[in-house]
Each structure stands twice: as structure tokens, then as C-alpha cells.
């Protein structure tokens, strides 16, 4: 239960990181909070020749409101996301989902960028990013580019980033109006990876009609699932006229590749996903009702 040997690099400047990634190629791995990487290394499920520590790069640790977006540096720790006033008021779904990540000791070290780049299917923040149409700012020694959340997660622990690219920041659109947010997940033990979960954000008119919705599920398959069918089921309807259980069933119906493992069958996971979507909806609706 000890990691294999590696060379440790730490830089204060992002340009040095991209240069090192280009130079070292596949032998190098970025180390941010390490809360997923270090367990895998301790168990020898992963080994690398070089680790590049990016935790002290100031450029990656900023949170900024820019017009109608909040731009969060990839190196911002979950515990900072949890307590940040800008995120609490302007990206409420992200604020609501963060306390569900691991335990508070994990959130002391783990980062938003690490979670997104690791792309664990059971993780909360990738689903929030997909639901809200976040965009990913990635950089390499070849330049920078922006990847839409809908294109970012391509498979199990796999993103659209190239091996020489670093996630610099993620940008979340700010919703205005009367909002409701809800997140629900089911795990066998508190803090474990969720079997399935769901994140829901809605904008509701003065007369309780849903005018806009963002609904995603996580843990269901290799990548987060944006449920367009669930969104069109609620948008344009009165809060009171949406049946949560029916919504849950509908939201998981079109996922074709539901994961199964030795503990959880695909049909059970689908039922859990439906129940979590129903619960996340109830929480979002109740949240919107409180904000008249």
C-alpha cells in the first residue's frame, strides 16, 4: 500500500507546467488535490514516472464573476467552493452539490478542476457542469481552447483534453430570476461514491410556471447524463403539475448504457437514478417556492 517511485515537480507558473507536460509526455501526471490520484497510487492501480504538482499556481486559484459567468480556477479546492459567497449566490447548483463530495477532510484538499478532469462517472460536479452548460478553458504549450461541457466528458475517466493539456478554469453561466436547485444522491455509506444521483436547477415565473430547467444524472453510465426529456417534461409547466416519480422514470428511460457491477445491477441503478431525480426535483421545487 505504498506508491511506486516517481520524480516530483512543482511549479508556480502555468507556462512551466505546459512545457513540462510537452517534454515529459505520457510519463507525467498532474497532481492537484490528489484525493483520487493518491489512493490509486497507494493501491498501485496507477504509477507514473513524474508527478507535476499544480496546487500552488495562483492563476488556478481565482473565482471571478465576469458578466453573465462565474469563472472558477481549476485549482480551487472544494472547501473554498463550498464557502465562497459569489458561488453561493450565482452558481447555486454547484454550491448545493459540493457538500456531497466525499467527507470534509477530502474537500480540504480536492479541487474542482481535479474532479472534472478525473471525470469519475459517479462524481457530482461533472453532472453539474453538464447540466448548466459550463465551458472548460484548457491550455497547452500549443495554445488554449474552450471545450463545451457537452463535449468534455467522453468516457469512463476520459475527457476531450489531450495529454499535453491542462484544465485552467471552468466557466459557469449565471442564471437570473427566481431559481430552485436540488441535488440528491444515494450511496451505501455516507461519503461513498454514489450509486446514482441527480442535479436539478429550475427558473420559475411569478405564477409558478417553470420557464427554464437544467437536469442531469450521475453514476448512471460512463459519463454524466443530461436529461433533455426530463427538461422538456417540466419546462412550460406549473410546479404543482409535475409528478416527481413520473419525472424520475422518464428521466432515466432514455439512458441506454446503464452501468452494472458486482453489487449493483443495471435495473436497480436505473430505479435508484429515477428516485434520485424525483428527489432532486422535489428539493428544487421546494427551494423555488421559498424564493417568492
Amino acid at each position, binding site marked *: *500500500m505504498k506508491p511506486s517511485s516517481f520524480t*516530483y515537480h512543482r511549479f508556480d507558473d502555468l507556462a512551466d507546467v505546459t512545457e513540462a507536460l510537452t517534454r515529459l509526455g505520457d510519463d507525467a501526471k498532474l497532481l492537484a488535490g490528489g484525493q483520487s490520484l*493518491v489512493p490509486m497510487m497507494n493501491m498501485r492501480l496507477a504509477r507514473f514516472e513524474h508527478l507535476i504538482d499544480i496546487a500552488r499556481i495562483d492563476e488556478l486559484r481565482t473565482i471571478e464573476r465576469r458578466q453573465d459567468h462565474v469563472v472558477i480556477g481549476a485549482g480551487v479546492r472544494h472547501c473554498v467552493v463550498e464557502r465562497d459567497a459569489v458561488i453561493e449566490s450565482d452558481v447555486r447548483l454547484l454550491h448545493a452539490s459540493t457538500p456531497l463530495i466525499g467527507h470534509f477532510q*477530502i474537500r480540504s*484538499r480536492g479541487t474542482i478542476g481535479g474532479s472534472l478532469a478525473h471525470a469519475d462517472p459517479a462524481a457530482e460536479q461533472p453532472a453539474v457542469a453538464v447540466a448548466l452548460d459550463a465551458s472548460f478553458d484548457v491550455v497547452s504549450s500549443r495554445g488554449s481552447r474552450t471545450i463545451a461541457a457537452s463535449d468534455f466528458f467522453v468516457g469512463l475517466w476520459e475527457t476531450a483534453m489531450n495529454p499535453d493539456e491542462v484544465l485552467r478554469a471552468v466557466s459557469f453561466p449565471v442564471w437570473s430570476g427566481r431559481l430552485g436547485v436540488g441535488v440528491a444522491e444515494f450511496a451505501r455509506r455516507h461519503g461513498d461514491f454514489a450509486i446514482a444521483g441527480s442535479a436539478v436547477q429550475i427558473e420559475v415565473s411569478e405564477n409558478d410556471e417553470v420557464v427554464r430547467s437544467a437536469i442531469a444524472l450521475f453514476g448512471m453510465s460512463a459519463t454524466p447524463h443530461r436529461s433533455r426529456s426530463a427538461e422538456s417534461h417540466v419546462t412550460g409547466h406549473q410546479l404543482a403539475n409535475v409528478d416527481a416519480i413520473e419525472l424520475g422514470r422518464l428521466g432515466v428511460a432514455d439512458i441506454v448504457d446503464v452501468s452494472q457491477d458486482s453489487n449493483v445491477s443495471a435495473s436497480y441503478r436505473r430505479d435508484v437514478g429515477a428516485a434520485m431525480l424525483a428527489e432532486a426535483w422535489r428539493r428544487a421545487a421546494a427551494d423555488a417556492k421559498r424564493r417568492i
Partner: protein
Amino acid sequence: MNELTVSMTVNGEPRQVRVEARRTLADTLREDLGLTGTHLGCEHGVCGACTILVDGDAVRSCLMFAAQADGCDVVTIEGVAASDGTLSDVQQAMHQCHGLQCGFCTPGFVMSITALLELHPNPDQETIREYLSGNLCRCTGYQGIIAAVKVAAAAREQS
């Protein structure tokens, strides 16, 4: 050898160690600095026995390399009591409420509770359970530990 020098403040004392890059902070504290109060249960971040404070935040010392703590302020269970051995309020409350039996998990719990009370000086039952959920205890059934948090919080409020 991929060795490097790490300087950090441990329990108020400046310390410098020469370690392999792959050395975890937990192993550095135990093996290189002789601070064996930090316990190792699972070594993959689940059990919470190795919880310490780094720059005031409760962290898993098994999920950090010593190299990452370079320049940081580290507090372990050895740094919690006063130098004359007087127990901290959290330790005293654990003693009073029978919050431990075999004691293996206790250093991790004490560090987590110490961090919890900094963030939430007067935590309710739900907050206490949430913040203790990352530490496993196979003996007590947890109720004594939860009671200890309440006793420590109440004592702080009175003083």
C-alpha cells in the same frame, strides 16, 4: 533516488526532512519524525485515522505526499495537548464522555473534531454527524464521540 528536502512546521517546531518523493505525509510524520500518534488504518482515505491539520484544515495525511506539505503548518495529535500534558478541551470531553475504547481511531477523531469546532463552534446534531462521517470507529458506536463534541462546544461557549 527521487529524494527531496521538505521543510515544514510541525506542532509549532520547524522541521526539515529528507524524504523520497513517494513518501506520504503520514509516513514522514511516523517514520521520519517519530510522531506515531497519527495512525494509519486504510491508507486510501476512507477510515480517517490519519487525519491531521495542514494550514488549519483537516486532511488525510495518507493522501498527501510529504513534498506537498513543504512550507506548511502541520498539527498532529501530539500538538493538541498543552506542553505540560494538560488535555485539550476536545481530548478532555472524549475522556469524560467515554468517546474511546481501544483508541486506534481516536487521534483522527480528535483532529476532525478540533477542525469542526473551528468551522462550527456550536454544531447541531446533524452537523456533528456529517463532520464525523469521515472517521470510522469499530468500538464505541459513536454516541460517546458525538456527546464529546457537544460537551466541548458547550464548554467553549461558557468560557
